[in-house]
């Protein structure tokens, strides 16, 4: 039977998948976690710090859904609050200062929809990350390892390259949310998932990600290969000057949209 888009959504959400921290620890060495946004709190839904690969220090950031029930509650099921995004930005600015490449692992159903999150400026925090990441003078790679949920995912995915795992999804809205808004019926989520074009294959086809990472059955076996890929990515991007890097990043997003002819009109 062919895998449907909604099958992919469910695979991406599976609690059997390795979480963000596991990716950091298995792909990199010597991870030192760094905490706090220096403004309000430390958000356990986002984990960040410094780790090494072949002796090179990287700044690594991941959304973390948690590994058991207790941990999942503690991690708010991987739904960050504004302080999580502010911590991530603090660590990314630190990376820029010390010229460390940045790797983000994204796995979140979205930024947390809560009272406190709004009081502390969820929209502003995401907006600031997106704005600042556009011009961070260090290479950024983001990898969607499970759920890429809307603005809450994008706030860690304004990068020079974005990769997706084979069974990850990336979407502007959850299929349930989409179905309930459009058809007033969240049971039509499978249909919505199909229409949203959120599978890795679809997203790649739309030119939004550069690479699909095959999972080949057992996702736990991909760490080694992923490390090699990340390192060769880093070697390639090391060659860029700051100007080249930022221009390429700008154009990467600039070209996403409707098809435009040479006169700047609809094709």
């Amino acid at each position, binding site marked *: 039977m062919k895998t449907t888009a909604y099958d992919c959504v469910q695979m991406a959400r599976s609690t059997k998948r390795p979480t963000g921290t596991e990716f950091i620890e298995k792909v990199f060495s010597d991870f030192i976690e760094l905490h706090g946004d220096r403004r309000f709190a430390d958000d356990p839904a986002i984990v960040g710090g410094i780790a090494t690969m072949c002796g090179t220090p990287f700044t690594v950031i991941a959304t973390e859904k948690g590994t058991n029930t207790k941990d999942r509650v503690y991690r708010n099921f991987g739904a960050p609050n504004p302080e999580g995004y502010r911590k991530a930005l603090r660590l990314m600015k630190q990376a820029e200062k010390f010229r460390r490449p940045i790797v983000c692992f994204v796995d979140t159903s979205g930024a947390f929809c809560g009272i406190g*999150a709004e009081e502390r400026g969820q929209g502003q925090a995401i907006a600031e990350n997106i704005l600042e990441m556009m011009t961070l003078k260090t290479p950024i790679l983001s990898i969607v390892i499970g759920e890429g949920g809307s603005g809450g995912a994008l706030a860690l995915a*304004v990068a020079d390259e974005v990769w997706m795992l084979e069974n990850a999804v990336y979407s502007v809205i959850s299929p349930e949310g989409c179905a309930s808004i459009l058809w007033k019926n969240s049971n039509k989520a499978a249909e919505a998932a199909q229409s949203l074009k959120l599978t890795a294959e679809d997203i790649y086809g739309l030119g939004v990600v550069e690479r699909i990472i095959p999972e080949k059955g057992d996702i736990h076996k991909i760490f080694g290969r992923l490390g090699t890929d990340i390192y060769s990515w880093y070697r390639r991007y090391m060659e860029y000057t700051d100007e080249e890097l930022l221009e390429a990043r700008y154009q990467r997003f600039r070209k996403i*949209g409707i098809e435009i002819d040479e006169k700047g009109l609809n094709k």
Partner: protein
Amino acid sequence: MPINWIFKKSRNELEKGGRIPDAATQEEVEMTQTCPACGREVPLSEVWSNNFVCSCGHCFRMNARQRIDFLTDKDSFEELFGELYSTDVLDFPNYKEKLESICQSTGETEAVVCGTAKINGELCALFVMNPYFMMGSMGTVVGEKITRLFEYATESSLPVVGCTVSGGARMQEGILSLMQMAKTSGAVKRHSDAGNFYLVILTDPTTGGVTASFAMDGDIILAEPGATIGFAGARVIEQTVRKKLPAGFQKAEFLLSHGFIDKIVPRSEQKKVVSSLLELHHRRKRA
């Protein structure tokens, strides 16, 4: 067909789309719009003559053209990129039909109108979003037009004034809509890094992906009184936290007290405040 049905329909169309008719018919003059704040039936003629504000202070929503007429100097607005239109890029169910009918009922091609204009003589690049075009949602064309406006303003060293109203990213264009948040932010950043001024006026409602990108990127962020401004929708939050939301939650006044906007400006003062701020941000050479 009941007579009040016809009446209701024509009234909705007036509210929805339209521009203020040059000469309102007797029937239109007698129509009213219910104020959601005080409940009064406000005659349309009063709504139009009072910049769409009720005597209780409530700001009715305005379509993009109405707002441009209200905010800019007479005949100063020159539209840019108006020829771009949206297409059903993902083959999303019913999207094509929806676009067609909304274009017809509003007379617009997209949910944002861009151009240059003067505000009390101050030249600026201007974008105004339209709540009556798919709730001001941002798809690829809204993203493209706003990006182009910031690029144009960067090249011409012009300040940007933006009026936001949006339900967020347009889900019918999927991930491509989401990417517009990054695309527009890139252009805003370049405009800002070149030393140009960006002033944004948040109007009711400004939410989702627009709040989480260019709406919050202004050097100065103004808001209309009572406007709903937030990231997540109130209903979604209520379902998530299973608590009643506090009174005034996500209103402009709430954002002001939490430190996320600079100032709430009633419509009657907007033109003056915006033009003064534009004047204060004229590019100066260092002595």
